[in-house]
């Protein structure tokens, strides 16, 4: 075995039990290895199981299948050489900065003096000098995450796991913390040998990682690996940087388009799984793409950074556009269809009409609900009837989400209405 391999993950499978008794598959056949001196990024949309994988590596949970080993030893619980930085910081609000940082060392049972020196050194390294006696609530988000980093570094872990560590911070703070971290990493000042970074921010992955693994959702699988071979520090304006970003966008959307194409044609089975996106978000994206400088066709990375959308925000909207045939995606670009362009120019009532037509043509289940309501004498039907129908074809939470999307779109299209109190669908609109 290669001595420089810190972590080896092979064929990992993880499921979660669901109330109904069946199981939800979150991770399936995932392979991953981390060598000394590497930063590996796990990139994917929420629900792709990347955070779950991180928790398996941290020893916080066990997989149902496959193996994980750290320095050749199987991982069967939290290992002392693996530390983690959390998305929500996970600082103990009742401990001061110093006490938070010392916590992990105390658990190791080190002598008090060593605890103190190492903690102060970590605080110093991460730029928290002067804040030792502050409580986390007195600090800004960026400073809090610095405490999170110091707390992990102080135990001198071999592997540092980072679970979207910058996503709870504002853009400037995140950038500041990222560059600081990269600088320390390049100067080899960090007492760590390898980093695994979970993120849903493509630029962040390109900026920090040596390799990026792309995850698909439902279930989470590694679909491709992109090696970022560029010297650090990497500038966003560098054309090579942009190339890598483009490459990842293309890889991620290509897969999705393919999946959409594979979906059964309309009419046969009137059920498809939907992600809820508000109609005003859809309208917003159409308007943005229609307007200059894009004039109907936009590069995804460009428009994402323009509108400050993370992939978790952007992809569901582009998918909704594709589904409703208002837009099309090819080679990392989004292009408005004829209908999409008409939608952009229309007033509210016309928009509702276009949207309604798209909805009835391409979301068969919405048409199905409408037909049922039309056929019934009182033009009303309970929610239960449709959710049951959806659950025949998909998991419970997916069914909930799908129905939520349909209700929201149908409301905008004025196709039918829904009363949450009584859980009834009807054709009546309050007048």
């Amino acid at each position, binding site marked *: 075995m290669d001595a420089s391999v810190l972590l080896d993950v092979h064929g990992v499978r*993880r499921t979660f*039990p669901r109330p109904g*008794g069946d199981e939800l598959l979150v991770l399936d056949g995932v392979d991953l290895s981390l060598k000394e001196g590497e930063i590996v990024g796990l990139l994917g949309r929420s629900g792709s199981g990347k955070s779950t994988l991180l*928790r398996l590596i*941290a*020893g*916080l*949970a*066990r*997989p*149902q299948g496959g193996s994980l080993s750290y320095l050749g030893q199987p991982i*069967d*619980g*939290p*290992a*002392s050489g*693996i*530390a*983690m930085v*959390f*998305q*929500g*910081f*996970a*600082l*103990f*609000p*009742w*401990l001061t900065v*110093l*006490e938070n940082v*010392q*916590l*992990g060392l*105390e*658990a*190791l*049972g080190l002598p008090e003096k060593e605890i103190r020196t190492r903690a102060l050194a970590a605080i110093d390294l991460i730029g928290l000098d002067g804040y030792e006696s502050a*409580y986390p*609530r*007195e600090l800004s988000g960026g400073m809090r995450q610095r405490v999170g980093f110091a*707390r992990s570094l102080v*135990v001198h872990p071999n592997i540092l796991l980072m679970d979207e560590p910058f996503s709870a911070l504002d853009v400037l703070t995140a950038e500041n913390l990222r560059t600081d971290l990269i600088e320390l990493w390049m100067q080899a000042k960090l007492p760590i040998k390898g980093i695994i970074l979970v993120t849903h921010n493509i630029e962040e992955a390109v900026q920090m990682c040596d390799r990026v693994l792309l995850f698909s959702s439902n279930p989470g699988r590694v679909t491709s690996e992109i090696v970022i071979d560029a010297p650090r520090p990497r500038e966003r304006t560098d054309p090579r940087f942009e190339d890598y970003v483009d490459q990842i966008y293309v890889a991620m959307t290509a897969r999705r388009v393919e999946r959409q194409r594979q979906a059964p044609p309309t009419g046969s089975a009137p059920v498809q799984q939907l992600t809820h996106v508000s109609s005003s978000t859809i309208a917003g994206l159409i308007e943005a793409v229609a307007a200059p400088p894009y004039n109907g066709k936009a590069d995804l990375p460009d428009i994402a950074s323009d509108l400050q959308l993370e992939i978790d925000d952007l992809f569901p909207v582009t998918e909704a556009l594709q589904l409703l045939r208002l837009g099309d995606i090819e080679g990392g670009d989004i292009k408005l269809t004829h209908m999409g362009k008409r939608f952009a120019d229309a007033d509210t009532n016309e928009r509702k009409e276009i949207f309604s037509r798209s909805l009835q043509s391409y979301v068969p289940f919405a048409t199905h609900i409408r037909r049922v309501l039309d056929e019934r004498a009182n033009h009303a039907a309970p929610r239960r009837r449709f959710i049951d129908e959806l659950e025949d074809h998909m998991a419970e939470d997916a069914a909930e989400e799908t129905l939520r999307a349909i209700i929201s779109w149908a409301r905008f299209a004025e196709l039918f209405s829904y009363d949450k109190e009584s859980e009834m669908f009807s054709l009546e609109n309050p007048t």
Partner: protein
Amino acid sequence: MKILPPVSIVTRRFLPSSWDVMAAIFVFGLIILFSDASREVIQPLTSLARKPISLDPSALPQYALRTALRMLVALAFSLTFTFTYATWAAKSPRAGTLLVPLLDILQSIPILGFLSVTLVFFLSLAPGRILGAEFAAVFLIFTSQAWNMAFSFYQSLRTVPTELTEAGRVFGLNAWARFWRIEVPFGMPQLIWNMMMSMSGAWFMLVASEAFTVGNTSITLPGIGSYIAAAVEAKSLPAIFWAIGAMLVVILIFDQLLFRPLVAWADRFRIDAEPGDEEVESWALKMYRRSKLFDAIGTPFEILMRRSYQLTPPARKLPVAKAVIPAWLAAGIWYAILVVLGAYVVWRVASFVGASLGFSDFVGVFLRGLATMARVILLIALASLVWVPIGIHVGLRPHLTRIVQPIAQFLAAFPVNLLFPVAVYLIVRWELNPDIWLSPLMVLGTQWYILFNVIAGASALPKELRDVSDNLQIKGWLWWKNVALPAVFPYYVTGAITASGGSWNASIVAEVVSWGSRQLHAFGLGAYIFDATTAGDYHRIVLGLAMMSFLVVTVNRLFWRPLYWYAERKYRMG
């Protein structure tokens, strides 16, 4: 929990500060108190009869101390119970399915119920000595404190943020260390608030827990509760006022020396607090923190605790996610055990009660239960009509809230027995029907929970919503209907649930009222249990208790729970 070296080592000053002097007075006072009380409690039980309760106000300080000590000891037991029972219920979902409903039932059993079945046991622990009776009294106080504390901690344990627990595990804290460093601190603010509530509950039931009669055994332990009982029997109005005064002083001391420092200290455990939030000040906390004496007492414990975190190595092994026995089978076995156990208990209760009581007794008890239920419902409704508007009015004005809250807290602690003279006088004077006019006594101590919660709800109403309703000039009924009432509704429901449960418990002291030799009875379940206890009729006691538990739990499940979830779903902000 602090890691810095003790202040006494860091500071250069050699002479004791004024805080040290105060702390010394405090500590040695406590030591003397304990030694005094412990000498008393090993006296034979018969000495109680030789030394009847004196109504002389000069005896009150001594009584007050005994009562305070009893309450503190009970509070310590309640905390121990909370940390074990609630933790077990929260950590083992399977145990939780039994323990949580059990807590519901325990909460519905009035204090006399616990008394009648446990008195003999406690007296036998220290045969012939006062100590046994003291055990019983402490246990009774415990039963009026423990349940809601345990429930609050259970709730906290279930809402500890996952990230915190995960961080604890990643950094190698074992279960014991995680409990004391993560879970207990997280639950602390809520637990302290419930401890204060529990204290009020203990005061409210104080007379019943210090002076009691079960069949032929009558016990009157020296304390404020017994003093009140004696004052009521002797029809001494001045003594009643002295008792109120003494109670007020003890409550104030508790507040200053115990609860206020606790609240101020627990402020840092609040996870949602912002730096701008108002901080609670407490001089006593300053004393505890700054005196060397408390440091000297506390440091060994601190070191001991810190050592204990490292006793066992951090848990490494994780159970493999795949269970050996399928989950449904394990759950099935567990539920089967529960059903068999439940059936056995029902059968035992039925055969015990059925041995001497017939169907007519059962119907009689049921009717009494319905009478008490009617009272509870009606009075909670009336109290709501009064306190909801007032609570909203107060809650929207912070300066009023600061004045009203402590007063309401004191009133919630007010033992109902203190109002017996007023009730008896009015009813006898105007020849009123006790079935109706004794009822208000039931909500006397519990209506304040409605007020507390409505105040909390109104003060939590977002400023923006108030601004927008001002801006749109929403006034009058429209404002109440669309702004104020919906905003406080979830809070109100929680308060009303607490108040209703408390009123059921209070029925045992509110449906039988005496002043001197004059005793008034109302037709109800509380009076039934009271009489059965006094007569030592165990069959009737068990029947009455079972009926009360059944009614309370049924009302909770069928009425309050759906209402609670409805309120949470529809009206909870954010």
